[in-house]
């Protein structure tokens, strides 16, 4: 399972960074979304990967399989924030397309 998660994060990150560096605004926003997925998975995996464990930590819980609840709450926050930021970026993207007439990130150049 660790390998699957690690490879998944790696693939998401690689694809995200590649798309982020592309010249079209739509590619950039997809790249940012993929990076977000990678980061969210990364945060979750930082609480150690546990299958079927309850999200509780505390005294007397030795031996039981438990998942660390803090990264789960962190990842919720980060999902909400990244999601809304992506939505905001989409608005800027559309405004830029409307004002410059092209979808190039620099606002000049041929439309795709």
């Amino acid at each position: 399972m660790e390998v699957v998660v690690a490879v998944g994060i790696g693939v998401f990150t690689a694809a995200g960074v590649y798309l982020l560096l592309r010249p079209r605004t739509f590619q950039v926003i997809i790249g940012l979304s993929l990076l977000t997925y990678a980061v969210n998975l990364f945060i979750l995996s930082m609480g150690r990967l546990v299958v079927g464990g309850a999200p509780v930590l505390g005294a007397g819980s030795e031996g039981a399989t438990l998942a660390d609840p803090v990264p789960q709450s962190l990842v919720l926050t980060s999902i909400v924030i990244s999601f809304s930021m992506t939505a905001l970026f989409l608005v800027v993207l559309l405004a830029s397309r409307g004002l410059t007439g092209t979808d190039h990130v620099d606002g000049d150049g041929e439309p795709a």
Partner: protein
Amino acid sequence: MNLGGLAPHLVAVPILLPLVAGAAMLLLHERQRRAKGVISLLTVTLSVAAALRLLLVVDDPLTPAIVVYRLGDWGAPFGIVLVADRLAVLMVLVTNALGAAGMIYALARWATLGPRFHTLYLLILMGLSGAFLTGDLFNLYVFFEVLLAASYGLLLHGSGKRRVKAGLHYVAVNLAASMAFLVGVSLVYAMTGTLNMADLAVKAAQLGPDELVFLKAGLSVLGVAFLVKSGAWPLSFWLPTTYSAAAAPVAAIFAVMTKVGVYVVLRLGTLMWPEGHALELYGSSWLIAVGLATIVYGSFGVLASTELPRAAGYLTLISSGTLLTVIASGDASVIGGALYYLVGSTLGIGVLFLLCELVSRRNVAPPTGAVEPVFSDDYETALHSEFEGVELGVTLPLATTLLAAAFFLVALQLVGFPPLSGFVAKFAMLKAVLDSGADGYANGPAALAWWVVGTVVASGFAVLVALMRKGVKQFWAEPDTTPTAVRPFEALPVAFLLVILMAITVFAQPVMRYMGATGAGLESPMQYLHSVLPPGGGE
């Protein structure tokens, strides 16, 4: 510390008040400008008052205290705490003072040029104050996002092709930086199991070498995020374009935003590894190299830029670079001087951004045509051109002369000439650098202190040449331009900030004593640790 009644809640005021006021103002219609203006002004004034009151508490001559405010009354490290020490309160005060000036300035014209200006402006102040006050790493991320979200909106305020283009780059860069922030935070959590900064410092000292490697990796990724915010070279190419595209009052508050990055580097750098070299964590020689490169890049940029707002953007870089370079020494007296420089240069750059617009009004191009609205309710406001109504302002007598005088004063401040605080700040900072020479920059080569001094002085010269050229071009070389129309509401904040700059020069001794105490507090953070994590395990 003697805070009776509601006073302990003062710490939360600079965060909660703008949030509540900003949210409440969403209910008001865009046309209720007067009500919105009054609420906003009241809010920033109260925030400044709260920050001043806090300043008296944390700098109490008999019992200086660090005020720890436990949100939800959960003690650290389980709950989130707000920590008001000298550094945090100083930054909150600077933010809100500049915020008040920018708000007054915006009331004259900018606030009416687009929807929801007041709410966004108050939210950015809330985010900044929160980022300075919080004692929790993930909470810091949340406040970062609050201030960034507000800054995205504010940058686009007034719309126009240039702003949207700059905004696109700005949002993309900062979203990527936020990812780095998250990766760093989660690595730090994975290694230490805590997000509270004080607890982090305690836990980090107990880690074995294997875990330490990962912690340092995490903190380095975090550091990249902060360096993007502070505009350190080579992560700063977006900054001058963005700042020069923003509306004047927005650009003024953006001047504080770069200081958030510097603040966090300073805070985390001094908190972790308290004994030994303060900023060892970020590899102070790396930080010095990055800082010096930023100064050099900013100096060339300021010389090369043809328009004033762009030059002001590069000045922001020079200010950040200088701060990063000198705080990397980790020496208390150097940090004291650096903080004095931070206050002066932030306010100075803020005034310059405000002046940029007033000055450039003299040779304004004819209206550039109406801007297409993005949202349906933009129609009421956005269809007015940005330059429409410029003539309607009262033409103050001697306005041009006063503008020139203000520009001259700001230039003196930013170059670092007497009598303004820029000179005192650079002198205090560089003298401390040379005094601490061998020991402050121990991680680098022996002549490093001289390199730092040389670069800072040379950048001052570059700023002098650049600002002199701009001043001559603006005020002397075009004698037949019409007199500038300046509204009283626009002159007031400029005068207000200039008075503050003069005041911290005249009262340099008490101010420097405060900064020195702040530096000393950062160098030996035991008081911070004990305040957040009471030795007895809390109540």
